[in-house]
């Protein structure tokens, strides 16, 4: 039976793999008819779905709180696949006629979608991904980033590693644009020596081989960037490996979306971000309260970035009509909203100039793990690519 069908079997296996690689898509649409239409394109299924869900929820909360019935939001899933993201983005632009696209978590997807959206005269406002390519020479007048340029949190982690007294660092990240930005960012501020540099597969779940290399290296500290499920897998395996070098990293590797699944393995670790849930300002406190009330969980930085993105769009919508692109762009550039992270303004490349905080993972009395703000790691930090950007306003 096998021999007769061998050829067909191979064919079917090919189809099987193709299907498995392109898992289906889920669409949620809500909102009302209005004059400003936002396409929220983010990762809602598969690995990394938690991040997209947080961005979406934070964003929708901000739009809802703005009370502006004229803003309509269409939500779609990109499945963390560049080809799907491009397809859905084109559909949103051409048949849904959105004015603004936002939502993408992963830099490789943002690189596939943002340039084509801005080329079609739409705004792309990034709530997360900030690849170097879009911040420097490739900057665009219709591309804004509300989160950070990718290097930012890693530069702050480099500064933190210096403070921790790390002299020889083992550094690793997944091999994709944000991973490369991570290592570049870390090395820019880290004053010690790099013992070894490793790139892993994006979405890799087993880190035994890398942990063995850490054990064999003569490093005295480890820097790593591993968003979502990758961070969970690594932290659990690292905690059980008997290697006990100090860890440091950007917030993505220790965020609220992964802390419950990691548990005690992350306790006490220092990590860096533009925000922490207990940051001492009114906007942040109000956001954390209302997010907890609406969704029953502690917001992550992704939720915070989604929320700030919503605030920015809502603030610009009260000042200008999105159909008048120049006026709307000017309104966005003003960034006239109270950011949950405190001071916030855009640099000439339309990326934030902001403080980065050192945060520490602690366990609260009720058993939940949370990041608490410790001190400012880098003050009023602007990305280094801004000088390469030709925009002038």
């Amino acid at each position, binding site marked *: *039976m*096998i*021999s007769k*069908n*061998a050829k*067909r*079997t*191979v*064919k*079917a*296996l090919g*189809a*099987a*793999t193709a*299907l*498995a*690689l392109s*898992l*289906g898509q*889920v669409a949620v649409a809500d909102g009302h008819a209005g004059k400003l239409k936002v396409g929220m394109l983010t990762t*809602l*299924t*598969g*690995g990394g*779905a*938690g991040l997209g*869900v947080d961005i979406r929820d934070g964003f929708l909360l901000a739009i809802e709180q703005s009370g502006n019935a004229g803003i309509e939001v269409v939500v779609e899933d990109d499945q963390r696949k560049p080809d799907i993201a491009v397809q859905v983005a084109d559909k949103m632009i051409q048949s849904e006629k959105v004015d603004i696209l936002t939502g993408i978590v992963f830099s490789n997807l943002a690189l596939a979608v943002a340039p084509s959206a801005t080329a079609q005269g739409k705004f792309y406002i990034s709530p997360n991904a900030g690849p170097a390519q879009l911040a420097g020479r490739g900057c665009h007048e219709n591309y804004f980033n509300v989160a950070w340029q990718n290097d930012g949190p890693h530069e702050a982690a480099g500064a933190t590693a210096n403070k921790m007294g790390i002299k020889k660092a083992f550094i690793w990240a997944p*091999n994709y644009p944000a991973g*490369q930005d991570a290592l570049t960012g870390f090395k820019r501020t880290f004053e010690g020596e790099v013992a070894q*540099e*490793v*790139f*892993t*597969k994006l*979405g890799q*779940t*087993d880190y*035994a*081989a890398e942990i*063995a*290399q850490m*054990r*064999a290296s003569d490093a005295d500290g480890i820097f790593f960037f591993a968003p*979502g*499920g*990758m961070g*969970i*897998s690594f932290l*659990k*395996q690292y905690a*059980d*490996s*008997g290697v006990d070098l100090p860890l440091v990293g950007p917030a993505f590797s220790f965020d609220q*979306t*992964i802390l*419950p*699944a*990691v*548990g005690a393995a992350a306790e006490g670790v220092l990590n860096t971000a533009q925000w922490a849930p207990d940051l001492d300002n009114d906007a942040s406190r109000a956001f954390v309260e209302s997010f907890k009330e609406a969704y029953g*969980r502690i917001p992550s930085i992704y939720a915070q970035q989604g929320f700030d993105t919503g605030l920015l769009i809502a603030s610009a919508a009260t000042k200008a009509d999105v159909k008048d692109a120049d006026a709307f762009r000017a309104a966005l550039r003003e960034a006239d909203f109270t950011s949950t992270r405190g001071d916030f303004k855009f640099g000439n490349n339309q990326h934030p100039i902001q403080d980065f905080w050192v945060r520490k993972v602690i366990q609260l009395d009720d058993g939940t793990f949370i990041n608490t703000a410790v001190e400012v790691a880098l003050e009023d930090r602007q990305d280094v690519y801004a000088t390469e950007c030709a925009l002038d306003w």
Partner: protein
Amino acid sequence: MSTILLIEQILNGLQFGVMLFLMAAGLTLIFGVMGLINLAHGSLYMIGAFAAAAVAGWSGNFLLALIASLIAAAIFGVIVEMTVIRRLYKRDHLDQVLATFALILIFSEATRWTFGSFPLFLDIPAVLKGTVILPGGIEYSLYRLTIILIGLAVALGLYLLISKTRVGMRIRAGENDREMIGALGVDISVLYTMVFALGAALAGLSGALVGAIQSVEVGMGEPVLILAFVVIVIGGIGSIRGALAGAILVGLTDTLGRTLLPVLFSSFMDGSAATTVGSALASMLIYILMAGVLIFKPTGLFGSA
């Protein structure tokens, strides 16, 4: 690279291979006996991990969690076999692929509804935490060592089941000539359901074992499913022995490739570039291996011609 590191990496490759074997064994068994391509095998792996995480969270007992993963995956396997899969045996492989693909979507969304989008917590049991020192001064994770032993024990058990027992005889007969054993009075549909449940249980066990050191999340099964397909194609479709050989080959190739290639490239390139090129090539390595095997043995290492 020191010998100790190399041996540790070989152990890591072995452990990865053994995990793949647990997945691939069920997949290849189901294909060999019933001629069915089951894409939903990855979902059964996910169900095992979620069942284990839920039971471990409730009872705090890892052994209970493992048993729960076996039972949950087997039960879902039986339900799926009796309601959907049974109608597909006589159909074309492409129909099977389509129907079982739909099952992936249903299982993924149902899991998301039940457990939410955020990863679940499942930890290594306290007795298996930490490391042991192996002869030669190699420090190795006790849990990973346990996984290797469990995997090898399952391989031995499957071998005995299939070559020494009456059920095994029927399974082998079913692979060779389905009509004939039906004519000899064996209830073929019960046999099929049993084989499917066995395959499902193995996938569930593998999900639970891996869940303790990885992230228990929706969609965790699909990347493993793709690797399991690679394994059974290399090993020869339908052969348990092939699945074991293929799994260990893939595990070792992937792990050693990941660590050795960047080192190799850095001997004639500068550090960062070597790392990038080496890791890019390493991620292709198992597919290159598969293509190589298929060129010389189109039916796989242990496939019948």
